[in-house]
């Protein structure tokens, strides 16, 4: 249990630090697998049919399918490295540690006394959410944004598991399916974006805005103003 949460934290820190995209995809794949294993470990032994299938399908979807799609997209668009993001890689790591501190503060702030909630898993899940959000806000590459979304979803899933929530099987599957289709669609969209725009930088996508054009409110007033 603690090993998985420590590995989760390490993987998030690695993402914050690394600039090469194909490495990032592989790290996210590992995270997917970890989260697949998590419910099995969590229920310690009495592995029901539902929990098993769920774990397996998480591992397959997040561990194998999505990374394959992402790397295919990467190969197609021929992007090698994340160019200079808003917050540099060194400072990102510093922010990572700050976020970790924040996650610890949130975890104990919630005083989850009644159920025996593994504090360390809770901290790692909150850290994953915050890291995902931070990555999404700072990185320029659209692919990185979808990966960051995946990390954030893993974090949310982690929080769910740590609060010993066992939704009915269909609902758990529904959540997983939504996340999978979401990221799959992002991949599909990335293909189109790449074909349409030569670049995949999210910060250049600023054509739709209200700044440029504006109509006069009072025609008459404008002329003789």
């Amino acid at each position, binding site marked *: 249990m603690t090993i998985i949460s420590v590995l989760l934290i390490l993987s998030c820190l690695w993402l914050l630090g690394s600039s090469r995209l194909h490495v990032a995809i592989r790290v996210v794949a590992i995270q997917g697998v970890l989260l697949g294993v998590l419910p099995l470990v969590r229920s310690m032994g009495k592995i029901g049919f539902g929990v098993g299938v769920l774990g397996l399908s998480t591992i397959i979807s997040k561990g194998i399918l999505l990374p394959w799609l992402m790397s295919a997209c990467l190969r197609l668009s021929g992007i090698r490295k994340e160019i200079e993001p808003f917050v540099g890689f060194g400072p990102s790591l510093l922010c990572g540690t700050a976020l970790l501190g924040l996650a610890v503060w949130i975890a104990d702030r919630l005083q*989850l006394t009644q159920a025996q909630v593994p504090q360390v898993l809770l901290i790692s899940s909150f850290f994953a*959410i915050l890291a995902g*959000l931070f990555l*999404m806000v700072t990185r320029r590459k*659209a692919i990185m*944004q*979808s990966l960051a*979304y995946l990390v*954030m*979803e893993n974090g*949310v899933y982690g*929080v*769910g598991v740590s*609060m010993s*929530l*066992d*939704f*009915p099987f*269909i*609902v758990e599957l*529904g*959540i997983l*399916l*939504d996340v999978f*289709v*979401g990221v799959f*669609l*992002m991949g*599909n*969209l990335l293909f*189109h*974006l790449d074909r*349409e*725009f030569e670049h995949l930088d*999210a910060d250049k*996508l600023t*054509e*739709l805005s*209200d700044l440029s*054009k*504006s*109509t*006069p*409110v*009072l*025609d008459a007033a404008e002329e003789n103003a």
Partner: protein
Amino acid sequence: MMLLLLTILLPAAAGTASYFIRPHRWRRLLWGTVAALHLALSITAVLTIQAPPLDHWIGMDSLSAIFLVLTSLLFLGATVYGIGYVAREPVAGQMDFEDGSLFKNEPESVFTGGLLLLLAAMSLAILSRHLALQWVAIEATTLASAPLIYYHQNRRSLEAAWKYLILCSVGIAVALLGIFFLRMTIQDGSHDLTLAALLERAGTLNHKWLSTAFIFMLVGYGTKMGLAPLHTWLPDAHSEAPSPVSAMLSGALLNCAFLGILRVQQICTAAGMASFGGDLLILFGLLSMGLAGAFILRQADYKRMLAYSSVEHMGILALGVGLGGLGLFGSFLHAVNHSIVKAMLFLTAGNILSRFHTKDTMKIQGVCDALPISGALWITGFLAVTGSPPFGTFISEFTILRAVLAQGRWATAVLYVLFLLLAFVGMTGIVLRMALGKSEVNRVREPLTAVLPPMVFAVLALLLGVYLPGPLADRLHEAAQLLGGVGR
């Protein structure tokens, strides 16, 4: 119970099937029949099912009854319009009128499939009684509607789709966190997150966790609903999507997100924390109306103007629910009125766009001269959406004003009226400049499929302004009681 399941599974099945149906004619036939069938199903469901459901996951209370019939009505209108729209779209590549880049449309099967899946997801979201299931359904609506937005696959719609997908998914992830916190509010250890169970235990819910959960879900679903500071994706998505899709997005999809917030507010009122949720909703409501008014004032693109007006009307809905009492009745009536009027406006905007080939309001003049029916509809829609009397929106906005004044909130009342007037002034300039005058484009006969649905919606909006049909009025009052509002 079977009826409800059918309303969800039928469009889902049709959606997946239409991906694989090659011949256009067959697929459009399927699409039309499913839409009509869905409306019939939902109307029979509303009339037959009286007893509120117990602990099933799928059930229909008066609130979801209103939204279900509204959504299927809008979908039927969008279908009739969509079939004509898709038939007229050129299959080969076409030149984007904004920046001249070449693009090819999405295959029609993806479009029809996406729309049907969207309908299925929305029906599930409306009918689901289990909050997590409702979350799954709302996330599914986002995923179903994302490919519809970049149907034209030009640069602008791709960008709009990307922003829509990222922002809504992040928002809804926050909502998922909210649901987990909601689970924590239950003290006696049961894991049942259905609405009925939560309402039973309402007295014993832990207030600290409930308020945190409410905030997370308000921000989550608020992003999806387009409340003020979280609305940034809405103008891009609704203006770049093809007209039938933006009609569905504005008319029906925003209501589903609104339903999510209503469920949480329902639990909060049952747990005795109505004022906490109410104040937040009023704050967001006023903020949305103000910001939307600011953006409408000098808007250059008339579809973005309609999108911002949706943000404003969502603000009015939130304000109405936040007030409670008479405001609830006004808010639900306004949801019905706004959906019908906004769908009509987007379809008419589609007609104007397909004739004038530009979205810039300064370049369009004399719509009434070139397209007489659409021009008349455009002005009627404008009068309806700004809440002028003969239409239903005036009745609901006036009821909300009476609710605000009944609670003696002077500042809110003044701001409310000012923002309504601001939006009116902004839209008048744009709509009148477009509608009146002599147009260079010569007059052409407008296709029936493009004109019939907006006309039907216009008649409905006018009818709602003059006479409130019996069953709708009772459903609205029951819905108001659900959230603790006063009846008459």
